[in-house]
């Protein structure tokens, strides 16, 4: 299983290296979304965050805006991940090779997760520059980013697979994936708020929730991928 996962993940990353869809298209898209949020929420808007302390609303909203951007980018990456398989009958070929469905699931999730993490490194720096929030707890932030990414990709891969197929419309992926990852958005935003602005709320317990979500969907995906991939 892990051997198949490694094989699939390295193959997907090799395709990404050859085509550069992630760096050439998804990353600019994410940057664009960050900038558009900046235009929508004017930098002059201020909110009071403590006695006598006012902060730009944009900085205060940075965690939520960042995670929405990541979700949108994840939708593109997930769609891409399955578009690669549905052209030229490769899904059939994978079945004929007898790869373990759980391995395929883990491999494809891992590849998307790796791409998203790289993406977030750049987008995160961009968000700090554009929105200018403080950073109170870098360790918590890093933990949150990793756990939330794993959760988004695990759940996203399950539902992107459900929505995949030659004649299936692209609109299915957002409809299925977004409600499922809504808890990730909530928890990641809360935990990121704690990591950026200080331990107002219990950031680590939100991070733990993210870990649970990722674990659960990893299990679900390993079990569900067989029936989902079986075409007849």
């Amino acid at each position: 299983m892990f051997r198949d996962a490694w094989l699939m993940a390295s193959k997907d990353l090799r395709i990404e290296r050859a085509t550069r869809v992630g760096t050439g298209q998804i990353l600019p898209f994410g940057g664009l979304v960050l900038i558009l949020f900046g235009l929508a929420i004017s930098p002059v808007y201020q909110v009071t965050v403590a006695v006598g302390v006012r902060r730009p609303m944009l900085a205060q909203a940075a965690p939520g805006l960042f995670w929405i951007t990541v979700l949108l980018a994840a939708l593109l990456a997930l769609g891409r991940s399955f578009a690669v398989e549905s052209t030229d009958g490769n899904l059939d070929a994978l079945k004929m090779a007898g790869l373990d469905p759980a391995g395929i699931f883990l491999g494809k999730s891992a590849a998307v997760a790796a791409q998203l993490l790289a993406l977030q490194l750049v987008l995160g720096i961009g968000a700090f520059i554009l929105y200018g929030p403080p950073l109170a707890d870098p360790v918590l932030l890093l933990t949150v980013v990793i756990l939330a990414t794993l959760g988004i990709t695990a759940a996203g891969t399950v539902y992107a697979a459900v929505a995949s197929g030659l004649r299936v419309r692209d609109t299915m992926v957002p409809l299925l994936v977004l409600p499922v990852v809504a808890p990730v958005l909530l928890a990641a935003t809360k935990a990121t708020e704690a990591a950026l602005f200080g331990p107002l709320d219990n950031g680590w317990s939100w991070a733990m929730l993210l870990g649970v979500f990722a674990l659960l969907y990893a299990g679900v995906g390993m079990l569900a991928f067989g029936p989902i991939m079986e075409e007849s």
Partner: protein
Amino acid sequence: MTDLDLTPRDVPTGGSGSLRNWLIVGALAVVAAFVLFQALTSARVYFLNVDEAVAQRADLGDDTFNMQGTVISEPMSTGEAMVFTMTFGGENAEIRHIGAEPTDLFKVGEQVVAKGHWDGTEFVSNQLLVKHSEEYVEDNPDRLDYELDDNGNPVHSSEPTDGTTSDGSDDAGQ
């Protein structure tokens, strides 16, 4: 190309990973359930109770949050604001509400959620939501009174506090 070996291959059986998957998933579920329990018991999602809000007053600063408690004083109008006292867990808080009138359910003895922030020791509220309990009590003109339990939660008493009339009609659901 005649030297290419095309002998049909005996495909390795590679045991069905089904059992192993179940084991992995089972282990994950146990871990997840444990962690979930831990996380859920500590996550504050929606509101702070009055005692918690009072304890964290310094940390909260001017943050907007929801505070929950039971109304214990008859609200008084002072010009544009409505002033009353809320209690929970043995702590009281003075509320100055500026904003839309709460619903008719807002009255002494009800649990409410006030949305606002601390201003010194006073809580300035912009929105008052009435948190109805899952208790539904028959509207009986004889009995409109309440008591508070140790936590400051209202207790619907079958005995009116003025003690003049007794009321035995409401025990069915309690």
